[in-house]
């Protein structure tokens, strides 16, 4: 291993600009003639819009224009769409309600935009937005997913009777029922996976620039996938044809899913820049982030898992209601189906699984993918069931899992996934050893002597990443292919630029991608730069989400490097008068193996561009592109063990020890991979103990700021112990599985299993706040006193 190659802990190349304050985020962009947008948003969860009076606002200082939804749709701007078609089990298509970037006749959640003010400054725009008079006629609202399905519930969309978007199933219902019928033991649970707000620290922002001479638009935006944004803005929202629209996602301050989507604000800013002939900038404040960034999770699930007398799982039956909020967001339909139900086999060999999912509308912010997207909900359910079953059956929770682990690969689950590689027992062993599970009884006794309750919980997660084979997802309803592209350009002086369709917003691609290139071509890592995030520079790409940039994005780079290498070898063989097969790239040079005949890497570059002496018929230049389409999902898996300590007097709970043993396949940079686990686990601890989006029954958002929505802080998480147990992914060239979401997927059940272990009460829903824990302990004391 070289000190900058695959497996090296290379310090990040991109850090310097961030630690010196020179990062360039969207809100840092300011252009000549800058104008500012402020949105007029609905204060009601559900209302008819009977009229909008903009006259007062229009007369105010600095106001350039006040624009509304009728003007927007009148100009042919299309409705926002969900790009993944999921049909109900009876074959009927999903019921997608109309979603205009600016609502015309009806608002469906608090924060739904109805108009926009464009003014000379942000402050003036905001003041004028307050003066826009909207005549609302309030309608009854529905907030909770199960209540939305009840008879007589307020109807969110006219074309979705009963608020039902789809009623979908996977697996064999009859076989699963039969398996449960004959089970020796059945574990039954109701699990709520609460609604979360992704909360990247950088609020969303957009700067739209319309060039009147060229009819050309430029959009700077906080996006995880600028190319997809351009495609959708062009093909579906009719904002501008693709060749007249450049989308730039510069430095982006975290995404976690919330910045995958193309939002009403971006559409509106582009359109408003054309309407006003001014560059239009909008930067949300945190209140707007809570009110309008797509939320995550929000499932209500009941499930039954059957075991035979030996403790082997015989069947798993799941019924889930998924809250989609007021509109169907871009990938919303895929989350509780193909990213959730297809993972319900977990790490276990289960012959019979059936899952039914009903997706519903409510008067809340739309829900879509948030770090993990469907997989955290699946993992939480399975791992809570396993821990609970072990307790009910009086067996060791780790060993019950082991008994059911899949141990031969490939393994086809009854929910259409084919796991390609893994070592689940090995992960468990590694985690148990690192967490010193053997010493837990002693630690628990010691905690007790201090008056503290100590508990330990497991979670053995698996996820499907590296999304995804385009034909496979196409057959499941996806509107796009999920390949990735790359272009490798060797300059005449031998330095290298890699253009990638992936987008880095914290993942460190400028370093890890450079590592694989530097190693392959035996070049100093400083001579490699990574270009991303600009549709004028990179031709196309699918962006970064679903832990796909390593498994898919890097694979595309490898494919392009294969082509570059082939050409380099041809040029060198020609110049050095040797056979191509004898040419090797090593030690910074291109040489004939076993001889001292060599060319400098830069000499090959120069030869390619001068074109003075190339093999017959060879085109000059040294630049190759590739599209990589994965052949399967990848399956990162691992075992997490959490230990908590609880103060029984206050319910105060601390995660005192957290051990992760992950199998991510090949690791390019362990430092960066561990960082991904740290962040993911912190978000998982946040979900388990702190975070929850709350609406009141009228649909008012209660958690609208950091005063009410509890983000994990430095004191809420411990130092983590991280182990790796690598099995190589057989389906991509580098053997990568992906690591971006594992922490957020695996951590919540480990923490809740530890808390319920500590307090001896299994009935607690996330977030397990101090108050809930205290109440559970009180309840138990009362019950014990009564016995």
């Amino acid at each position, binding site marked *: 291993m070289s000190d900058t190659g695959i497996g090296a802990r290379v310090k990040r190349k991109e850090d310097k600009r961030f630690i*010196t304050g020179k990062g360039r985020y969207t809100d840092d962009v300011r252009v000549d003639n800058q104008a500012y947008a402020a949105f007029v948003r609905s204060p009601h969860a559900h209302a008819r819009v009977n009229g909008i009076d903009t006259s007062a606002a229009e007369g105010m200082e600095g106001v350039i224009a006040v624009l509304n939804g009728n003007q927007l749709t009148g100009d042919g701007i299309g409705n926002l769409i969900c790009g993944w078609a999921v049909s109900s089990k009876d074959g009927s298509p999903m019921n997608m309600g109309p979603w205009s970037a600016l609502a015309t006749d009806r608002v469906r959640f608090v924060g739904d935009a109805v108009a926009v003010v464009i003014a000379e400054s942000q402050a003036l725009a905001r003041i004028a937005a307050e003066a826009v008079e909207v005549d609302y006629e309030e309608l009854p609202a529905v907030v909770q997913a199960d209540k939305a399905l009840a008879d007589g519930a307020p109807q969110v969309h006219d074309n979705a009777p009963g608020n039902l978007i789809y009623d979908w199933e996977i697996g064999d219902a009859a076989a699963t029922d039969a398996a449960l019928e004959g089970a020796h033991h059945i574990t039954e649970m109701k699990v709520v996976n609460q609604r979360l707000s992704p909360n990247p620290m950088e609020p969303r922002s957009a700067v739209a620039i319309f060039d009147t001479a060229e009819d050309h638009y430029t959009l700077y935006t906080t996006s995880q996938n600028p190319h997809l944004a351009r495609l959708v803005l062009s093909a579906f929202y009719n904002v501008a044809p693709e060749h007249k629209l450049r989308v730039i996602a510069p430095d982006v301050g975290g995404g976690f899913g919330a910045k995958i989507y193309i939002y009403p604000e971006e559409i509106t800013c582009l359109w408003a820049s054309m309407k006003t002939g001014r560059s239009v900038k909008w930067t949300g404040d945190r209140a707007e982030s809570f009110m309008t960034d797509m939320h995550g999770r929000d499932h209500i699930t009941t499930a039954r898992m059957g075991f035979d007398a030996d403790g082997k799982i015989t069947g798993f039956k799941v019924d889930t209601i998924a809250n989609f909020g007021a509109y169907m967001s871009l990938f919303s339909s895929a989350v509780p189906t193909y990213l959730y139900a297809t993972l319900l086999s977990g790490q276990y060999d289960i012959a019979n699984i059936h899952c039914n999912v009903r997706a519903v509308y409510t008067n809340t912010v739309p829900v879509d993918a948030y770090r993990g997207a469907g997989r955290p909900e699946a993992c939480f359910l399975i791992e809570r069931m396993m821990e609970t079953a072990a307790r009910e059956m009086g067996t060791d929770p780790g060993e019950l899992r082991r008994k059911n682990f899949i141990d031969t690969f490939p393994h086809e689950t009854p929910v259409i996934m084919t796991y390609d590689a893994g070592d689940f027992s090995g992960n468990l062993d590694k985690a148990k050893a690192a967490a010193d599970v053997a010493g837990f009884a002693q630690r628990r006794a010691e905690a007790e002597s201090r008056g503290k309750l100590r508990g330990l919980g497991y979670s053995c997660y698996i996820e499907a990443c590296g999304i995804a084979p385009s034909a496979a997802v196409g057959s499941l309803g996806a509107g796009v292919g999920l390949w990735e592209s790359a272009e490798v350009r060797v300059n005449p002086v031998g330095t290298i630029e890699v253009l990638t369709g992936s987008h880095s917003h*914290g993942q460190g691609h400028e370093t890890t991608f450079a590592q694989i290139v530097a190693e392959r071509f035996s070049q100093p890592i400083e001579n490699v730069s990574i270009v991303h995030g600009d549709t004028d520079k990179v031709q196309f790409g699918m962006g970064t989400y679903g832990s796909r940039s390593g498994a898919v994005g890097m694979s595309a780079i490898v494919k392009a490097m294969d082509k570059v290498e082939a050409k380099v070898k041809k040029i060198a063989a020609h110049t050095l008068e040797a056979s191509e097969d004898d040419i090797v790239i090593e030690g910074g040079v291109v040489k004939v193996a076993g001889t001292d005949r060599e060319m400098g890497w830069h000499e090959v570059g120069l030869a390619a561009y001068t074109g003075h002496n190339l093999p017959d018929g060879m085109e000059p230049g040294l630049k190759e592109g590739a599209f990589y389409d994965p052949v399967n999902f990848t399956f990162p898996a691992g075992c997490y063990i959490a230990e908590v300590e609880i103060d029984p007097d206050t319910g105060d709970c601390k995660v005192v020890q957290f051990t992760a043993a992950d199998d991510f396949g090949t690791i390019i940079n362990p430092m960066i991979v561990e960082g991904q686990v740290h962040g993911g686990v912190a*978000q998982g601890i946040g979900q388990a103990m702190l975070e929850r989006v709350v609406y009141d029954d009228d649909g008012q958002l209660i958690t609208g700021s950091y005063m009410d929505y509890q983000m994990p802080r430095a004191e809420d998480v411990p*130092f983590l112990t991280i182990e790796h147990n690598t099995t190589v992914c057989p389906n991509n060239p580098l053997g990568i599985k992906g690591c971006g979401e594992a922490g957020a997927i695996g951590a919540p059940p480990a923490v809740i299993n530890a808390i319920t272990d500590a307090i001896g009460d299994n009935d607690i829903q996330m977030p397990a706040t101090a108050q809930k824990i205290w109440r559970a302990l009180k309840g138990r004391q009362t019950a014990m006193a009564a016995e």
Partner: protein
Amino acid sequence: MTDLTLTVNGKRVTRDVPGETLLSELLRETLRLTGTHVGCDTSQCGACAVHMDGKVVKACTMLAHQAAGTEITTIEGLANGELHPMQKAFNDNHGLQCGFCTPGMIMAGVDMVQRYKAEGKTLDEAAIRHELEGNLCRCTGYHNIVKSIQQAATEM
């Protein structure tokens, strides 16, 4: 509009800014020092942290005019020819991912190390975590931020 004079990163500046201008706006919009970030509207996240007369303040929570006559240091003014030990420590320990919280984390880190040194107290892990209560990071899980500050504390 009212004249405001203060020192920013060692340079004296005078600007005519409205009374309601926040210090963060003065830095970002008027002086175009965009390294100071704004991540919230309730003084909770610390992305806007700068130093005023050597002490950390949240620039989103102060009026620009309240800083009249003071010396402000922003993330852009921290390096003195070479990186400040806190900046270097964040790079050494992978203390940042998306970088958005980073300027605030670094300014808060420098402040806490200086304060503890001045008071002769040890800045251990628990103290660092406690001191970071006004700074949110969504990416790093704080693990490597704490390590970065630990390293810088030994080098400053």
